[in-house]
């Protein structure tokens, strides 16, 4: 059970930062509360009392998104469901809808923020590999006197380990900034114990762009989660595909090679096997999902692409 003395609902960022900098030790920021409420239960943190909870979801500056110079800036208020309802986001961030559809359920997605997912820094967080594949950065703000100062950190570096980030005291995350990947095919792979409402055992996000004729890999982005304390970007796999002729054999070959880059938390053998299948499926699904291109595999398998 989570209890507090005071629940604040600031309406501006300045007000929130002010409250946050003055909040007694142990106070917490709340966004969707979908991590923080279940955390304060038996078997996890148990009953927790905090002096103040500062809710950031009514801060208008954190709402909405903008697209500029090849980057999408998502306000910290962006929730997972937005990636399934906002056509613009679906187009610019093609792996996010697939990540979202496997994330919790419609009801939790309506509350759960991408920012909260990143700040919570669970090694099994679904958002992390997807954001890392999109070269994501997180924007952090704090007060310096009267002024709000902001800094941007790549998400791969922001997450230092399970539950550990580079967020410092007095800082509030205000946005996540991502590459636009319009025209790419996106994909997301996840294994857990069931379909809905399940935390990943392992997950992977893919973004692939094939050339006009669907014959060559122009660009590939792959990241995996749940297999180590921090998110892993599979840069070597990406490099070995770029410019190559698209074939099942090549995909299979790089998928096999990918396991070596993976250091696992537990159930190593199982996770290694999963990674091979994930990398292959992430690439193949992303190819299938690329809009307006028909992929021609060098070694086409009829049954899949009839």
């Amino acid at each position: 059970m989570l209890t507090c003395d005071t629940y604040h609902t600031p309406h501006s960022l300045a007000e929130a930062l002010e409250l946050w900098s003055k909040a007694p030790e142990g106070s917490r920021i709340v966004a969707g509360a979908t991590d923080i409420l279940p955390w304060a239960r038996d078997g996890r943190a148990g009953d927790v009392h905090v002096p103040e909870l500062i809710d950031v979801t009514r801060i208008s500056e954190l709402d909405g998104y903008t697209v500029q110079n090849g980057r999408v800036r998502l306000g910290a208020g962006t929730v997972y469901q937005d990636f399934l309802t906002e056509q613009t986001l679906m187009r610019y961030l093609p792996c996010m809808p697939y990540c979202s559809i496997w994330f919790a359920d419609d009801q939790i997605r309506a509350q759960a923020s991408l920012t909260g997912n990143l700040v919570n820094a669970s090694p099994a967080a679904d958002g992390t590999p997807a954001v890392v594949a999109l070269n994501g950065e997180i924007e952090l703000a704090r007060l310096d006197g009267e002024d709000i100062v902001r800094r941007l950190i790549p998400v791969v570096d922001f997450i230092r380990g399970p539950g550990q980030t580079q967020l410092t005291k007095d800082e509030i995350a205000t946005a996540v900034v991502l590459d636009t990947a319009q025209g790419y095919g996106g994909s997301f792979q996840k294994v857990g114990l069931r379909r809905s409402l399940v935390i990943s055992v392992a997950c992977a996000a893919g973004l692939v762009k094939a050339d006009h004729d669907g014959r060559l890999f122009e660009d590939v982005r792959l990241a995996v989660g749940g297999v180590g304390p921090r998110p892993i970007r599979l840069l070597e796999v990406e490099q070995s595909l770029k410019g190559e002729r698209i074939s099942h054999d090549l995909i299979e070959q790089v998928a096999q090679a990918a396991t070596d880059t993976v250091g696992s938390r537990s159930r190593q053998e199982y996770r290694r096997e999963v990674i091979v299948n994930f990398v292959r499926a992430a690439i193949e699904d992303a190819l299938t999902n690329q809009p307006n291109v028909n992929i021609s595999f060098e070694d086409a398998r009829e049954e899949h692409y009839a």
Partner: protein
Amino acid sequence: MPKLTITANVNGRKISRETQPFSRLLDFLREDLNLTGAKEGCGAGECGTCSVFVDGTLVKSCLMPAAKAQGTRIETIEGLAKPGSLTVLQKAFHKTGASQCGYCIPGMVMAATSALRENPNADIEEIKERLGGNICRCTGYTKIFEAVEMTKAILAGDSPESVLEEDKVGDSYIGANVRRLDAPSKVSGRLKYAADIKMYDMLQMQVLRSPFAHATIRSIDTHEAEAMDGVACVITADDVPGNDGFGVFVHDQPIMARGKVRHVGEAVAAVAAEDVLTARRALSKIKVEYEALPGLYDPSEAMKPDAPIIHDYAPDNLIKHIPIRKGDIEKGFAEADIILEDDFSTQQVEHAYLEPEAGIAYVDPDDVVVVISPSQNITHHRHMLAEIIAKPINKVRFIMSPVGGGFGGKEDMIYQGMLALGAMKTHRPVQLNFTREESLIASAKRHPARIHYKMGLKLDGRLTAISFDMLSDGGAYGMSSEGVMRKAAILSCGPYKVDNVNIDTRAVYTNNTPSGAFRTFGGMQAQFATESMMDMAAETLGMDPFAIRRINMMTIGATTHTQQTLETASLDRVLAAAETASRWEKGAPTVRGSERRDLCGPDTRQSCTLGARIKTNHNNPRFCAQVA
């Protein structure tokens, strides 16, 4: 603590009400507004019994701080239709029988309402996805999906409203589609389960549970807890006035741990206070001194001579042994052409009924101790409690509240005694609502079983002998173990004629969570072994699995291994139906996996995918059935 005033529009009416700053929306609705249609099945976002609309968006109210509802428009199950009426969807749930225990149903109706509001044209895959956050443990979902599709068709004008009317019943009710009498109360959220009931001046109980699996209790100091503001009483085993002990067969379980604890999660003390928070805080002030004892966690260790003893009355740790002998087992195996031998094991299983244990007790003006709870066994509970609290039977009353799923798991009196003691000590109504975590840790589970199986057969497939030896982990208390062992023994060799059988089923004490009643009562564990053996025998003998079963099936006039002569038998029809429905590919079961021709037929379940609505948005073919 400064209170929080929430002003919102709830079901069309403006309300303004004080609540705690940390209340969740679910608490605010249930406790401050008495809207109990939304339920707390898990409190952690996993089940959907708490689903409500906030500004038109469906949310899980157990995960939403009430403060977030400030200034919003909230719609609960109570607000979907005018009092006394039902929405089309609610009527469709009634029509298709999409409510059993009903505990999930208000949330399910909300999720289905949301699905059709979000996309009135959603296809079945999308409907399933949109209902993915709501769990039902009873209906199997099919009827729920039928109700949603029926509603969709009516709302689209594709189907007349008359489909909602009850089907005419002809000469017989058998085979007729009869609507459930209690469905309207469930689909409207009006039905009150134990946790939904409030009584004037009622206290809330919380329970201190053992962190040890096996330990002696040296002392329990409750002074500090008792002295706290808002605490009405603290109870321990010392408060039991009569003969402490309950159980479905052997009365080996005290109301609360007496002298020692035997499993993690066993109740040690309980507090009744003005509210849950005070009761929980008081628990942390109770000091218990334990002295750890060697634990017993593996049932096969339990009967060894030097094993730790869990109950003094049972120095061999045996709860029950059921032996059955028929014919001459030696002779049977001697006649066999082949003998197959194997070991099987099954795991502990939680019932996971959506309604966590809950109840209320009070002492009425005539000194009758009354307990309201979703007990699956009220008469037996009443008799046991009378002994325990040393009252004549006419001074103990049990009222069975609607059971939000039981599946056998609510047969044990694991909390009703504590409630009675609390009510007797305070003379105020006392309520105890388990959390999901508490239900998991404290309630009985399906018996994990280990079975050693030996089967003798002729080359033509006839069974000559079966030796069946089952060892079950009964956990810390006897509960229903005896009955489960008896049923397992009776059903052990399946519906097959065997002249020579040797059957032993045993349940033993360990320091694991107690095992108890669970649908099939031991039959499932036994059948898993028997039917696996039959398949393996068919494979070994190169026979069709249906054929080997037909050769051995009991028919009218057969004598079961418990010496009952059968006057009816239907296995032939069952086998024929199963063979047709499964489109079984005839022959020995040597062909496996994708080579089989009877897999992936029209009515088999496809592998899990998600993304029906993304597909619709992009109009992009995704390749399905990725079996990795």
